[in-house]
């Protein structure tokens, strides 16, 4: 199995604070991976480690089997759109295309020109005069036209309005549909990722909480509602992620290996957002309890 990202005990420390801690992660190729977590969870740190903008404080990371940014070849294989989609404000769109062509040996000029034409961006427009959505599209164009095997995007739609958001994700998906490319994109909103991702990673408080294919996650998580009972009495194949109790009723959010057979429970399916929020809440509860935070990996 080849991993697009293979991290072992990966950590990044700033002074005494760990921005990312003890992260074991293996992402198989061919997926559109959503990286979700609250602001400050360590998403940007993880992505910067993957593109080689940061070096790990502990552990190792390999991207497409090699250390990030090891040489121009490795740089060429990974496309990156940084947070807030930085561009050179005083340079024109045409300047940016020349920049891409000069800085990347595998530059696909046809693709770049086609995208710019389709987006109706003027070649003479300076990047500083573009709207947020247009600038994000320009940054995406630069990243895809270098024809990477892995495309990494850090909160690409966070600052866009809903329409620009949809157009951006649409053009991202068009590119993904064209060829063999894996994508990792982060967001603090599940809703952004739900429609485009088939693999999900949840990061909370600098620790990995959950990683797995979306279908598996949906299939293996259920909400159980029934008469109040002790959560410890659940069968061994069921792990509680979140629980709430009233005097008479218990509501449990569980991860289960197989079907729930106990007829006392009313079993409900969950949305991806329900699952993600449950894991975020779970991380918070265990942190308050002072216990070691659980790491759930499904694959």
């Amino acid at each position, binding site marked *: 199995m080849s991993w697009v990202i293979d991290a072992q005990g990966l950590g990044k420390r700033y002074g005494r604070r760990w921005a990312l801690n003890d992260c074991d992660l293996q992402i198989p190729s061919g997926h559109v991976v959503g990286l979700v977590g609250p602001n400050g969870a360590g998403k940007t740190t993880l992505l910067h480690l993957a593109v080689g903008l940061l070096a790990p404080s502990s552990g190792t990371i390999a991207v497409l089997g090699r250390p990030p940014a090891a040489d121009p070849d490795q740089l060429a294989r990974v496309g990156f759109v940084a947070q807030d989609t930085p561009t050179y404000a005083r340079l024109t769109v045409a300047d940016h295309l020349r920049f891409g062509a000069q800085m990347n040996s595998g530059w696909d000029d046809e693709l770049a020109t086609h995208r710019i034409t389709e987006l109706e961006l003027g070649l003479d427009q300076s990047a500083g005069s573009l709207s947020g959505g247009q600038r994000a599209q320009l940054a995406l164009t630069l990243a895809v036209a*270098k024809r990477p095997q892995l495309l990494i995007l850090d909160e690409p739609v966070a600052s866009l309005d809903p329409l620009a958001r949809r157009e951006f994700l649409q053009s991202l998906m068009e590119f993904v549909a064209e060829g063999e490319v894996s994508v990792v994109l982060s967001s603090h909103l599940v809703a952004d990722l739900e429609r485009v991702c088939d693999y999900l990673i949840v990061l909370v408080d600098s620790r990995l909480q959950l990683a797995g294919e979306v279908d598996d996650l949906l299939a293996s998580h259920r909400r159980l509602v029934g008469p109040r009972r002790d959560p410890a009495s659940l069968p061994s194949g069921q792990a509680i992620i979140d629980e709430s109790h009233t005097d008479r009723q218990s509501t449990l959010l569980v991860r289960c290996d197989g079907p729930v057979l106990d007829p006392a429970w009313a079993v409900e399916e969950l949305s991806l957002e329900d699952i993600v929020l449950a894991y975020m809440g779970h991380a918070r509860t265990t942190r308050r309890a002072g216990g070691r935070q659980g790491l759930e990996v499904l694959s």
Partner: protein
Amino acid sequence: MIAFSLRQFRTQAIIGGAGLVVLGIILLVTGPHLVTIYDTAVAQCRASGGASSDCNNPVISTYSKLQVLATALVLIVPVLIGMFWGAPLVARELETGTFRLAWTQSVSRMRWLLVKLGLVGLASAAVGGLLSLMVTWWFSPIDKVNQDRFGAAAFGTHGFVPAGYALFAFALGATTGLLFRRTLPAMAVTLVGFVVARFAVAYWIRPHFMTPVTKAFGIGPNGGFGFIETPGGALQFTTNPPDFPNALIVSNDVVDNAGQSPSTAFLQKACPNLPGPNGPPPAVQGGQAHAAVSARGQQAFQQCVTTISTKYHQVVTYQPANRFWAFQTYETLLFVVASAALAGLCVWWVRHRLS
């Protein structure tokens, strides 16, 4: 990579180039006039036996504002290059986040840094050098009458040493920009750092590039004696340095055969009758001050100098005029080496600290 770096540098390059062209035209138009004045007015005045200081006036008073401006430009342009070309070079990219775009293209960040440093560094040295060459050419009649090419202002604005200054200022700006990650503080530190470095080299290091030539005189031939009273009340006896055209006077002392300066006690004993509350008045310097004191005072002063000259003599160390180009070379090399060290720091920083 090179083409893109040039594109990023275009506006600054145009401003710098345009400035050079404008100044070049002004100097080209006015320069020949200065030469003519030197060849006619000064030569005629000297031929008719005029005093050299009077004969020099036509050249010194021509384009006097332009003389000040040209000198000031050669002094200031390097620091402007450091502030406006050097400081933003990396700091702008770090500030605006575009380094994340640049460093994730298929070019290693080391190459990215070296190309930027190399290109703009070369342009900086070229601007500093060209500017200085134009000014050196324009100043040549003035230098002939001033006879002070080793002076602090002339040395630093002539020849090729300004190319070294400009390169150093650029490297200092780029390095501080990289370290601070902010353009504005980097500009401020570049300004202060460059001025400190220039002064330190001009006054502490330059005089010692080569062992100075030592020359001894009796008290007398160079004229201009005087006393200096230090704030502590001690007395020093001073004489004017000799008039060595285009030389750099390193030291000028009055000493005995053992190399000791005359003590306060000796001076008070040798010169007991001078006007002033406690013996000689402070800072009576040759000519004018002489005229102000009485004939009796003058006589006493002369006697005092004679007494001093029996035991003491004047020792001058200096760098002769023919060392000018050697010193230009040494000082340029010094600043080039310092620039290379700063570039090395940039490389190390980008490799080890910015990740």
